[in-house]
């Protein structure tokens, strides 16, 4: 084994691991085994994974090694292990979406993202925990128990993609895939000191992504560095004829942008609405320090007013539940998944109702009911209709802003990781975690969260959100990488190295 990683392959970045495998310093099998060993050692504490596919991972790693042995060209992430959020289908591998209703379901097909990961020779270690059907901000809504934040095991790792973010912070995987409907990639990244990107809506195929809210869902990369995120972004993005909402345009060159890593001459807007009351002091202080740093790096920073953002959360909680009430109707015990009450006496409707009653958790039921109500005849215009109008206003605010600035920045989420159990009985408090991330989903543009330090009062990671116009995802990486480089220089090491050992 190579000594390039001080004897611990799990500390390596994806870029470094791929280079080492390519150079023959280490085999993909060794890398996969190191991560499987790490999972075996720490996942009992973290619970990032719902399913570990050791056999599949080692087979894929062996295939990469064989490819190299044959002298074939390896891709930029060949042999790098990855944790896949359990909301993407993977042929023959359990896919539960964190729900009892899909317990035991093994999809007969691969999601496009899964297929692209395989084609890029990534090694999929397993499926990560998540809030049930991606509804939540803490991963406490998983039917299979919560995931814990490696920075403090009594705290949440964010949600819905808490399994993916925790797997990175726990060094169980150097890369992960998440999905972001209202912040489910960025907020977990923020509270675990990792990098998460929600690409432009339509940038990454949704085929095989089990839908929560079709017009908002977007798969994206999670990593410990901006460059790693860019490499993964490039691997999964691109037009897919199986997804009608997929954009048929070239993917912005995110890897080049991450390598460029400068903000010279850029105009950066600070969103006026996402500051002040309701924000943790340490979050604001780290955020403003980072903004000052961007200015020092040569960017022009201006304040930008986006008044409609104040209505974004309300609009989101009408649109997302409405779409989910329809998307989740298919879970009815007829074709796959859980079936309850099929005793030969109950009729089909009773079996459907009993199964849904038993199979869905409280948050999913709450949103199905909200959405069913919002779409009902007589209420449609007042709820779903006006939410769509708000969406239009938000898009206009963004258009106005991007006419003046290249990117917008804000805190990713108003607080650092909160305690497990702290907000479970207060849905509104839970929903506020996505306050700053939701406008990007409603507008369909691109967003990134990168770590900008620890809050002095609790020593927990703070994230900064960068937002770019649709199909200008490369700008996220330029700004993110510039800030990351400057911060690493300031700290003398990447923030993630400060995560306590488990």
């Amino acid at each position, binding site marked *: 084994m190579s000594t390039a990683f001080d004897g611990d392959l799990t500390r390596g970045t994806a870029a470094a691991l791929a280079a080492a495998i390519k150079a023959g310093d280490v085999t993909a099998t060794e890398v996969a085994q190191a991560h499987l060993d790490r999972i075996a050692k720490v996942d009992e504490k973290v619970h990032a994974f719902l399913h570990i596919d050791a056999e599949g991972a080692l087979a894929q790693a062996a295939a990469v090694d064989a490819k190299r042995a044959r002298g074939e060209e390896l891709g930029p992430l060949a042999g790098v292990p990855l944790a896949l959020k359990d909301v993407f289908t993977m042929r023959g591998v359990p896919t539960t979406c964190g729900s009892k209703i899909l317990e035991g379901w093994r999809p007969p097909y691969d999601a496009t993202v899964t297929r692209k990961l395989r084609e890029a020779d990534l090694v999929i270690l397993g499926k990560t925990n998540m809030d049930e059907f991606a509804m939540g901000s803490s991963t406490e809504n998983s039917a299979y128990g919560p995931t814990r934040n490696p920075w403090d095991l009594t705290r949440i790792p964010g949600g819905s993609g808490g399994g993916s973010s925790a797997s990175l912070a726990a060094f169980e995987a150097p890369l992960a895939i998440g999905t972001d409907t209202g912040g489910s990639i960025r907020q977990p990244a923020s509270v675990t000191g990792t990098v998460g990107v929600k690409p432009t809506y339509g940038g990454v195929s949704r085929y095989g992504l089990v839908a929560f809210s079709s017009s908002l869902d977007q798969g994206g990369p999670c990593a410990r560095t901006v460059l790693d995120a860019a490499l993964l972004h490039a691997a999964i993005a691109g037009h897919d004829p199986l997804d009608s909402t997929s954009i048929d345009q070239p993917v912005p060159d995110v890897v080049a942008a991450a390598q460029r890593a400068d903000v010279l001459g850029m105009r950066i807007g600070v969103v006026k609405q996402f500051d002040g009351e309701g924000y943790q002091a340490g979050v604001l202080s780290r955020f403003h320090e980072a903004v000052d740093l961007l200015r020092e790096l040569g960017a022009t920073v201006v304040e930008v007013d986006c008044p409609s953002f104040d209505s974004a959360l309300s609009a989101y909680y009408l649109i997302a539940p409405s779409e989910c009430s329809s998307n989740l109707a*298919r879970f009815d015990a007829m074709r796959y998944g859980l079936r309850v009450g099929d005793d030969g006496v109950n009729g089909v409707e009773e079996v459907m109702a009993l199964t849904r009653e038993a199979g869905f958790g409280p948050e999913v039921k709450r949103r199905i009911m909200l959405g069913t109500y919002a779409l009902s005849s007589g209420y449609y215009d007042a709820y779903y209709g006006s939410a769509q109008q708000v969406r239009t206003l938000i898009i206009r605010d963004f258009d106005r802003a991007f006419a003046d600035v290249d990117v917008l920045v804000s805190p990713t989420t108003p607080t650092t990781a909160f305690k497990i159990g702290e907000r479970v009985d207060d849905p509104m408090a839970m929903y506020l975690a996505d306050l700053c991330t939701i406008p990007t989903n409603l507008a369909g543009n691109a967003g990134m969260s990168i770590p900008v330090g620890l809050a002095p009062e609790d020593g927990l990671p703070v994230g900064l959100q960068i937002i770019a116009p649709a199909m200008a995802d490369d700008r996220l990486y330029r700004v993110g990488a510039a800030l990351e480089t400057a911060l690493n220089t300031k700290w003398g090491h990447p923030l993630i190295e400060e995560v306590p050992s488990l």
Partner: protein
Amino acid sequence: MTTSTMSLPTYDEALASYDPVMGLEVHVELGTATKMFCGCPTGFGAEPNTQTCPTCLGLPGSLPVVNAVAIESAIRIGLALNCDIAEWCRFARKNYFYPDMPKNFQTSQYDEPIAFNGYLDVEAAGRTWRIEIERAHMEEDTGKSTHVGGATGRIHGADYSLVDYNRAGIPLIEIVTKPITGAGEHAPEVAKAYVAELRELIRALGVSEARMELGQMRCDANLSLRPLGTEKFGTRSETKNVNSLRSVERAVTFEIRRHAAVLNAGDKVVQETRHFHENDGTTSPGRVKEEAEDYRYFPEPDLVPVAPSREWVQELRGTLPELPGARRKRLQADWGVSDHDMQSILNAGAVDLIVETVSLGAAADQARKWWMGELARRANEDDVDLGALPITPAQVAEVVALTAAGKLNDKLARQVIEGVLAGEGSPEEVVAKRGLAVVSDDGALLAAIDEAIAAFPDAAEKVRGGNQGPAGQLIGAVMKATRGQADAARVRELLLERLSG
């Protein structure tokens, strides 16, 4: 629980007090090679659940992609129905739970149909009726349920149900009329004529075979009554899945009588869906719903809007074939038949048979004579469709050709047709087997003529004197002697020649 027809007013009694208003919703399965939103094949009769994929099974994570051929077919149907074609329209989800619907919502269109505001002219009861079209929209078919056990064959009370998703996702076009008023006593006939005309149109466009017996075309008939002389529509019933032209007529007729009975009794008509029973021509209520169905329609977020360019629509307009109405007018002129005769031809289902017979060389009047005469009579006797008789247009054309060539006379031709219908082979084979060829040997005919002249000298003398009247007697004698196998025209010719020389 069917309403007994015994307790209902007669049709005439019902129409004496009430004015029927109809609304017809026709679903047509498009004959595309693949489904509406996935690449699965659409062939009929495959093993259950073999023509499925994640998308048409509604598996978690699957997504729809619109079939461009289906859009094209929908636009062509819209154009043929004189509709406006939307410049921009969307699909919508119609949400309801049913096991044969894999996603528990149907991807359909709601307030933005691809085609709207059209009409179709149909002929019924000796006049033309303009049926206004509200809309034609695209949607996907559901799977097919088979309910096993229980008394009704429906889901309630069944022991278990089987679902075949081969049909799930097959493209459908739903064509909805505006309320059809003013048809009065002719309402059932107009309804039937509309569905028949629509079927013709769909077939002419080549977008579907529209075979009702295979469910490729299905009609839901809405009906309400209002007291004669009033404007306000009554409460309607919707009779679902009426699956033959005759059933459309019968279902409307029955519902008129049933509504009249309800109204006569001072009761209120219940707004409900009803099932039609082929066996006795009655309808019975579908499941009684406690609340109005709320489908919670909203725009389908998994699909982008459909925005057919005006250039494309214009191009598609250019691909429209001659439509059935225009074709009928042209054929009527070509054949030189009266309105009444044309209507008879239509009613007999003989148009295409005659066209084909003519295309094989038969004179139009001859083709029409056979199909509308002898063959129509036989079809009627046997109670089958004209087209179902065991004789082809080619065989009829052959009989006409043999007659024109003088090889058969009318009487013999009739016997040949009879032989073909009896399965004795082609016309030529029947002629050979039955020995039906016309006697065209002049020598044999002259011998028979001489015998006739000898037998009827008085008649022969009169003809010789220039009076051709008694020639018939002589010709009849010759025909009798040749057992009808002589060509009467040739006999006359030879006879006159003989008596003038």
